[in-house]
């Protein structure tokens, strides 16, 4: 099964993406010639350790890089045939708001506005002001994301919720635009072990029920194995291996991949003490 959808063209097609950042006096080659594609309804994983560039890769693709100076930037990013790097602001916004793509982040506490109620923040993704249909939709999204008592959670501030609930708020926010593609950057890394499993289950359910494509980024192959059909292995800005998840697990072709597989097996064999080994702080 390769990256193709019903009509043959991939949902997301990235060719030879290069993103070099200027940090301090040096140039960091965060993404150094990457080919990447996602089919409609497919679930893809990107695995690599901290600093491999996986976060930068997806942010660059979704045009969400923060204020950093670019030393070099080239490549094609096609979403349903549209070149994301060259569309207008309004066109990009339209894709973000409506049947395009959404993203959820590793640190829901930092990525939610501390001074705004979570319901209002999700409502922003839907659009109009506090009309009743909007409130209803927000609560339904909360329910879909697995939040208990949506009508009460809506009025909470981010710091009043647990880590897992915050992440579900982010998920609800991402679902608001009915995206064809959902990107999750280390969605469970910052959560407790038991909560991790629950959120993973939620993501799996959503992938199945909504038939939306997903890109899951993680340093943990185990997480990706739970959710994804195919995986890309990334190291130092380059893709070193890619393929079906089972194949990669069983017969890794690259030495680095083999290491990751071994690490994942050891991690999942040991009891809950083997918690997040690398909290990829800012990639």
């Amino acid at each position, binding site marked *: 099964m390769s990256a193709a959808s019903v009509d043959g063209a991939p949902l997301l097609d990235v060719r030879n993406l290069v993103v070099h950042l200027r940090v301090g006096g040096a140039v960091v080659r965060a993404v150094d010639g990457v080919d990447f594609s996602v089919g409609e309804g497919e679930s893809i994983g990107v695995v690599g350790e901290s600093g491999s560039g996986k976060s930068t890769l997806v942010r660059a693709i979704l*045009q969400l*890089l*923060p*204020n*950093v*100076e670019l030393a070099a930037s080239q490549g094609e990013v096609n979403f349903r045939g549209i070149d994301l790097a060259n569309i207008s*602001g309004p066109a*990009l*916004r339209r894709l973000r708001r409506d049947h395009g793509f959404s993203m959820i982040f590793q640190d829901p506490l930092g990525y939610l506005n501390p001074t705004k109620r979570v319901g209002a923040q999700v409502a922003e993704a839907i659009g109009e002001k506090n009309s009743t249909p909007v409130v209803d939709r927000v609560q339904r999204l909360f329910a879909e994301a697995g939040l208990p008592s949506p009508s009460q959670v809506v009025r909470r501030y981010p710091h009043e919720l647990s880590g897992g609930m915050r992440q579900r708020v982010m998920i609800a926010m991402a679902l608001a635009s009915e995206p064809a593609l959902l990107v999750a950057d280390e969605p469970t890394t910052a959560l407790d072990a038991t909560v991790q499993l629950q959120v993973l289950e939620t993501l799996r359910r959503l992938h199945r029920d909504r038939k939306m494509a997903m890109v899951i980024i993680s340093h943990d192959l185990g997480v990706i194995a739970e959710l994804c059909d195919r995986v890309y292995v990334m190291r130092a800005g380059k893709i070193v291996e890619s393929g079906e998840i089972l194949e990669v697990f069983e017969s890794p072709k690259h030495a680095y991949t083999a290491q990751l597989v071994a690490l994942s097996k050891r991690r999942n064999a040991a009891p809950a003490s083997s918690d997040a080994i690398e909290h990829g702080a800012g990639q």
Partner: protein
Amino acid sequence: MNGMATLEPPSADPGLLVRAWRYLRAAIGNLAHTRHGAVGCVILLLLAFVAVFAPSIAPYAPLQQAQASLAPPSLENFFGTDNLGRDIFSLVIYGTRTSLAIGLGAAFGALILGGTVGMLAGYFRGAVESILMRVAELFQTLPVIVVVLLTVALFGSSFWLLLAAVVLAIWPVEARLVYSQYIKLRGMDFVAAAKVADLSTAHIMLREILPSAIPPVIVQVALDASVAILIEAGLGFLGLSDPNMVSWGQILHVAQDYMTVAWWTSLFPGAAICLAVVGLNLFADGLSEIADPRLAGRMGGLQP
């Protein structure tokens, strides 16, 4: 960046003055690269030139009342004359001396007083730190001009008293700066090394830490000078500065009464004050850009 001299604290042995001079030369060289710094430097050099060569530049003796009073600007009186027939151009020229004197004098006074306090507090910590910093806070409570007015009211307004009053009002800022620098630096390796080498406390404070603490301090000195000039001008404007010295502010004091008929008494002296203060602020801005170039190069703004 190419073409920029490095600004690390020069290494060990040459005397403090040599080091300060080298630093200054490098700094001025780099300043030329920053827009603000270059303009600021030019302005300051111009003012210094005018102050030093005042007698040669000014067409008339400043207090000479020979001309027609309240005459508008003309070829004889570039800036016009005041109500006593004094040439305003000459007054402005000579006023440069007063302003630069008080600017630099007060700034260095604050540096010495505040710097010493900050140095002691930052190095010795503990009770010394608490007491000294509380005292600094005390003097920082009231606005600068209120403190100066109080001093003038109680003790009179001769130039030196004015200088002392301004120093009294602005030393806490300098103290805080030096204090935070010392706190930051005393934990560093070269200090530990010096202690192990059994160097005296005074040596450590003055010859080891001080040179590294200097860059932001110079910025503050420039800013202090601009505050001092503003305050002196303000007092002159209120009619409370030293009557024996020519002051830009004093001309504005006259202007206050004659504004409806003699706009030139207000425009030119005020522009001079503005120029001096802007020059110092631009200079300070340029300096701080060099000292912390990270701030300059960052890409800003809200992306789509």
